[in-house]
């Protein structure tokens, strides 16, 4: 067993050193990024991470793909569970645990057209929600200013 470790220790050290060097380069360079390359700086990457995990908006509707299940789309865009079922008149008992592709195929629909319909319904919901939020905020603002 000792021979085994002696034989392989060099290779393991090289692998470990490579990983450490890559991590070190990134963390050291991150502190000295020129202003025009701040997109590579760790602070910017943290911002990118936050953006990647924020709530999805109307502009993100294009992220919907035919392999996604209705359940996943509901969670991704924070839709009420029965919203798409109602809007798209889905009678399939497997809803929401069925993918867009499977549903369209089972119902002899064109997958791309059905996908566009789903996107449109999600877009409508998000626009309605955004306008509701805006209306509530402006009402609150006007009531506080009158007081």
């Amino acid at each position, binding site marked *: *067993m000792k021979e*085994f470790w002696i034989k*392989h220790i060099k*290779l*393991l050290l090289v*692998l470990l050193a490579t*990983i450490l060097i890559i991590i070190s380069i990134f963390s050291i360079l991150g502190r000295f990024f020129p202003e025009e390359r701040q997109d590579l700086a760790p602070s910017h990457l943290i911002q990118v*991470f936050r953006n*990647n*995990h*924020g709530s*999805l908006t109307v502009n*993100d509707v294009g*992220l919907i*793909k*035919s*392999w*996604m*299940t209705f*359940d*996943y789309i509901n*969670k*991704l865009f924070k839709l009420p569970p029965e919203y798409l079922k109602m809007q798209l008149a889905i009678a399939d008992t497997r809803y929401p*645990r*069925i*993918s867009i*592709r*499977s549903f369209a195929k089972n119902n002899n629909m064109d997958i791309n057209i059905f996908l566009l319909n789903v996107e449109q319904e999600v877009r409508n919901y998000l626009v309605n929600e955004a306008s509701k939020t805006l209306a509530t905020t402006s009402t609150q603002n006007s009531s506080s200013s009158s007081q």
Partner: protein
Amino acid sequence: MDSILTIALSYLLLYKYLAFFVLIFLGAFILPLPDNLILLATGAFASQGYFSLTAVFILALVTTMTSDILGYFLTRRFEMSVLKFLRIPERHIKTAHHYVEDYTGMTIFITRLAGPFGPAVNFISGLIGVQWHTFVLYDFLGNFVDVVVFLVAGYLLGNYWLVYSDQISIIVASIGTIVLLVFVVVRLWKKKDIA
């Protein structure tokens, strides 16, 4: 996107951990499934609360290692008959054979990360009698790096993983090609020296 990947992603969303286990196991054992993209997607799903990142990490590591070790032990026990039965392309076996013999640890490590030679290397390792602890050590290291890199990348990319998936596939394929080229050059250099 690849139709295999789209089917895999649908199953992943429907059957979650069971689908993840089956896909990763088959991809590591014999089928040419896009395992790295499945890991990337699962990392993203974990960031959306659809999977537990810890559970997925442990499951991925255990599954890939079990699958690799199974391949290794099959050829160690049943030798060439396994390769004939599984109909692994002869060119994959020949390519992998040279590298496993000459650069055992590095070949096992690199083929966990990129390229289609992973399953072939497992079988060859068993066939030519690579020591089991050497195989397990490099298999663990390679799978650990692979699983961490792709799961974490997916987790960080979050909702937008699909936007970057093509670029990541290209990067991984490039790394695999570069490493393979380096191996070929070193091998040719050594042959020249011996001659």
